């Protein structure tokens, strides 16, 4: 007898995560590295590597981040890479799948993904998935925590930040805003600011990301932040307390503004409820003090309450899986 597996996938700019009906959870970086030459190909025994393994060997590879702009870059290579990533994470998450078994999937994509983009995802997964449902990422976050009544989901990702107003029904276009700022933008800001203050310091994308993830903050105060960096290979200590806060504020300021705009344009009877239910998700929700900073920015409007999701890494995938499991079979049949 053939089995039906259900999976929820969060296809993000920097990470792709999956949650399955068999209870598995997996996450990988959304990238593919193609061998630069024959020697590299020989060394790896295949023409490409995926995710973290690719990142670890990136010097011998041409890296493709197919969702770098928050949506699948519309070229052949990016489409192929997306399909490789999805196929691979599904295979890894469902090792028990036999020929003839079926997979029903919900795939969360950035809220602003174009129709062409969504179609491309359906197309590239046709060979692996029996049924595919494309959902907008903030909606799957809402689904994961069962919050469909008045609330505002703010998903701070790597490529973009999605804001989505929930009011008991499927969110419409006017309920959603996508900002082209996220973790990657913050990385750029931090790099520029450190180099402006300490021109000779040696920085890499990995180092910046780790500094941000460990020390990034938007609270009023912080203990002095001193990091060890190198100059011509010689390690030295550098003070970056103010630099870091100023950079982080450049990310949270536009988010506050977009939030105020979505609250301010909502039905006045329900604005207060919206303000009291701000839910912050995505990797950026880990920024220290972000909930308080967003609340503060709402004080001219009468104050608000913001809360971060606990399982930022998987809540999109979990929401998508939950949708799959709760969807009546007759709905699936239509697809």
């Amino acid at each position: 007898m053939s089995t039906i597996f259900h999976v929820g996938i969060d296809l993000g700019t920097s990470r792709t995560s999956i949650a399955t009906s068999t209870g598995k959870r997996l996450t990988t970086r959304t990238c593919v590295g193609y061998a630069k030459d024959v020697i590299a190909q020989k060394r790896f025994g295949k023409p490409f590597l995926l995710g973290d393994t690719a990142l670890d060997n990136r010097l011998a590879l041409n890296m493709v981040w197919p969702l770098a702009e928050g949506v699948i870059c519309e070229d052949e290579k990016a489409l192929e890479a997306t399909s490789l990533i999805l196929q691979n994470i599904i295979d890894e998450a469902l090792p028990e799948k036999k020929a003839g078994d079926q997979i029903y999937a919900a795939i969360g994509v950035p809220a602003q993904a174009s129709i062409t983009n969504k179609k491309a995802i359906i197309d590239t997964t046709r060979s692996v998935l029996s049924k595919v449902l494309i959902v907008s990422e903030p909606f799957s976050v809402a689904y994961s925590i069962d919050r469909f009544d008045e609330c505002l989901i703010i998903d701070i990702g790597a490529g973009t930040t999605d804001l989505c107003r929930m009011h008991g029904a499927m969110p419409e276009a006017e309920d959603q805003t996508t900002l082209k700022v996220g973790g990657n933008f913050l990385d750029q800001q931090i790099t520029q600011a450190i180099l402006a203050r300490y021109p000779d310091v040696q920085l890499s994308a990995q180092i910046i990301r780790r500094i941000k993830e460990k020390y990034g903050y938007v609270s009023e105060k912080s203990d002095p932040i001193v990091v060890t960096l190198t100059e011509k290979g010689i390690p030295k200590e550098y003070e970056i307390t103010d630099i870091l806060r100023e950079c982080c504020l450049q990310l949270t300021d536009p988010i506050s503004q977009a939030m105020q705009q979505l609250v301010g344009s909502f039905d006045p009877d329900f604005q207060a409820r919206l303000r009291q239910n701000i839910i912050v998700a995505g990797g950026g929700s880990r920024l220290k003090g972000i909930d308080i900073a967003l609340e503060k920015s709402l004080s001219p409007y009468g104050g608000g309450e913001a809360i971060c999701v606990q399982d930022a890494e998987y809540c999109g995938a979990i929401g998508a899986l939950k949708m799959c499991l709760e969807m009546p079979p007759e709905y699936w049949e239509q697809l």
Partner: protein
Amino acid sequence: MIEYGLLKAGGGKAVGSLLMPSAALVIGGVLVWQLWQDKKAIRDLKQTAKDTQQLKQQLADLQTAHSATVAQISSLQTGLATATPARAISVPPSLTTTSPQSTSSPSKLAMLKRLVEDNLSLRKNL
């Protein structure tokens, strides 16, 4: 030095034999040339030793810098595990059930129906 001694010995012999002055001249020339060659080889050897020493120092410097960076990265990583927000909303336990269970909530059904419709119109455009 040995080369010098050889030259001296060879030279003495040549002076002793007045019958073959040109041969002595050739031998002398060869010996001087050899001496010069050997001196050059020694100079080169000394330079190579110096270069090797310098390279060793550079390697040691690089190793120090490398271990500093590794230490720096791992110190940053230990901080990551602890970085969870103080106030957080968690995914409800109902989600631990992983078998399909169609929802009976009318509002959820309405949203899922709408979602399917959106996906169908997406396919129509294919």
